[in-house]
């Protein structure tokens, strides 16, 4: 990509290959992805008899891409940049400056671990690389370790940044310190997150795929038919009495397994002055190294059930690691579902901020914002009720549906009250704290030096109430952090205080006449 001519001339660095062991790993992982298909082929074989042809084709399909990948992929690390060259027909060279590297994420699935190789993802602050990553799939473990040490050195010599002085100092004092380690008691939070549901979905999808591929109708197999027949002989009370506890127990079990598999041996520890390492995983290991001076903030997220049980999780706000949906699969998790106090402590210690910011009270957005919460929730509820009533009327639905839909109104009131209670912000010591949400409450602590612009949004309704939604844009995390429905004067004061030089030229001076047409 960039720097092709200049960079390739660098002396003192050679093009390196991935480990030859990836020649074994990649076909096997590709095959395991095709497992349902392979199973189908095995079963079909008895019926069609063209097993040999198919298996040869499958083997070729699995082996050839892996070989091509290994042959064509090379990487090189110079003093300034990291290069990655790959591609069969269109050879591409990706390069990234080493001072732009934010994170190094090393993962090893079970198969990878058996063969001692791993997958390295280098997270950058660049938008022009697709997904902002450089992927090195199939390095030996020792190579990966030395690469990580080279790119995010234990001594923060290269990563020094004037703006990060405070954070760097905080990190240095606690070098090598352990911030958090998984405790078995945290397992109680496992059923309260969506992880269990996700695992269930994956299992269900796998079974469905298998039954599709093998052309076996599961509903017609012996055991299932037996179960259905037995179940049908119960009365309705017995059915509920039997199936509900069974479903609950199954769900809890799967959630526990999921939590254990993903977060086993979870550990966040300082590593050198500027790096923090997050280690986790039972079968597939994951080690994420995050540069502390590039850590722009932390999000403390509390889904409703987790919040009710006094739990919370922490997610890193940094460039190069994804947040939001699927954050569990990415390296940005700084703390799995754990007691809220631990989340607060980890957040404040990692950022080097007073604990007040992580757990203390926030500035409320006032009566107008409260009114808006109620109006919005009740409007939505009324629209839903109207839709349900209309549908029930047209379809001659049962009366209890029409009566039951009225329950949406107290639900809306509760949600509105909770949303207002959770709405707030605070600006202190170079950190902007925002909190929003009800079903998932998120408290984000973002460094003001990471803010690279402001957006203000006012709908017609907000203008009438004297409110606005102030959004700080940043390159890290969700890319935007909003103060929703904040009073106009309060919001502007926050923006001006957070980035004084940015807002000040555009503030309305009472005596100065605003410029009109140019």
């Amino acid at each position, binding site marked *: 990509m960039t720097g092709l001519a200049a960079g390739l001339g660098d002396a003192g660095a050679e093009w390196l290959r991935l480990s030859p062991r990836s020649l074994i790993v990649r076909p096997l992982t590709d095959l395991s992805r095709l497992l349902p298909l392979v199973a189908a082929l095995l079963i079909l074989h008895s019926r069609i008899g063209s097993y040999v042809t198919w298996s040869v084709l499958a083997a070729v399909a699995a082996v050839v891409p892996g070989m091509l990948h290994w042959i064509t992929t090379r990487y090189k690390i110079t003093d300034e940049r990291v290069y990655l060259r790959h591609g069969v027909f269109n050879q591409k060279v990706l390069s990234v400056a080493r001072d732009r590297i934010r994170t190094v994420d090393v993962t090893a699935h079970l198969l990878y671990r058996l063969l001692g190789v791993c997958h390295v993802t280098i997270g950058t602050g660049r938008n022009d690389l697709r997904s902002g990553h450089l992927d090195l799939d199939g390095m030996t473990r020792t190579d990966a370790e030395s690469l990580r040490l080279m790119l995010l050195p234990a001594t923060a010599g290269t990563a020094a940044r004037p703006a990060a002085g405070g954070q760097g100092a905080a990190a240095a004092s606690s070098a090598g310190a352990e911030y958090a380690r998984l405790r078995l008691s945290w397992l109680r939070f496992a059923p309260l997150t969506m992880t269990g549901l996700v695992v269930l979905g994956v299992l269900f999808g796998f079974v469905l795929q298998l039954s599709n591929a093998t052309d076996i109708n599961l509903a017609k197999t012996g055991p299932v038919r037996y179960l259905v027949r037995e179940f049908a002989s119960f009365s309705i009370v017995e059915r509920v009495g039997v199936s509900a506890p069974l479903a609950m127990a199954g769900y809890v079990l799967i959630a526990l397994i999921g939590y254990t598999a993903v977060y086993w041996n979870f550990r966040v520890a300082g590593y050198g002055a500027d790096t923090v390492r997050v280690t986790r995983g039972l079968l597939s290991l994951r080690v994420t190294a995050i540069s502390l001076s590039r850590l722009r903030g932390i999000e403390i997220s509390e889904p409703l059930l987790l919040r009710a049980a006094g739990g919370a999780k922490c997610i890193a706000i940094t460039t190069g690691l994804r947040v939001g949906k699927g954050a569990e699969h990415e390296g940005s998790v700084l703390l799995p579902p754990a007691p809220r106090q631990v989340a607060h402590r980890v957040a404040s210690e990692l950022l080097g901020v007073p604990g007040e910011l992580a757990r203390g009270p926030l500035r409320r957005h006032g009566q107008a914002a409260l009114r808006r919460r109620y109006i919005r929730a009740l409007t939505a509820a009324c629209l839903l009720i109207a839709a349900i009533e209309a549908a029930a009327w047209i379809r001659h639905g049962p009366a209890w549906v029409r009566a039951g839909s009225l329950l949406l109104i107290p639900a809306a009131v509760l949600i509105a009250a909770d949303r207002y209670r959770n709405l707030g912000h605070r600006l202190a010591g170079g950190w902007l704290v925002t909190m929003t949400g009800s079903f998932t409450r998120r408290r984000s602590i973002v460094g003001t030096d990471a803010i*690279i*612009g402001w957006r203000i949004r006012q709908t017609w309704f907000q203008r009438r109430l004297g409110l606005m939604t102030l959004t700080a844009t940043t390159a*890290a995390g969700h890319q*935007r952090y909003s103060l929703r429905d904040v009073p106009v004067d309060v919001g502007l004061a926050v923006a001006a205080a957070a980035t004084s030089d940015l807002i000040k030229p*555009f503030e309305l001076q009472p005596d100065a006449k605003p410029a009109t047409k140019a």
Partner: protein
Amino acid sequence: MTTERTVQPMPPGLRVPANRISRRAISYWTARAALGGAFVVLVEAAIAVAGGFSAAMGYLIACTFAAVAAHAVIMPRWRYRVHRWEVTDQALYTRSGWFSVHWQIAPISRIQTIDSHRSVGERIFGLANVTATTASAAGPVRIHGLDRELADMLLDQLAVATGQSAGDAT
């Protein structure tokens, strides 16, 4: 200033960006809204014809037509009063929208790319828009409905300005 007051009953304490956009944008937006509205009305008419013309359908079409026509007349003029932009040494500053109003401030030093885009419709009306992206995926700043020459000038001016600063706070 009276128009300003009616548009902004409660301005958020920021001064209005200095420059208006091209007046031709009103025609462009009107044409676009009219075309989009005509399409919706035509689809409804086609459904009405295909399913046997009923009185309810007639009402629906009449209401849609009224709404679409009102939108095509009011929106562009309202929008023209709101849309403003300004470039200073430090920042790009815009106001856009109509029913909801958006203000954006992006520091020149954080701008990564600047490009200008002309759709077929904009070319017919001699307009262009300028987009400045920052390192934040949420941060692109768009100035719509600029004169074509002005857009080219702005593009050059911003390209020079952004080349002079380092670091992107990522």
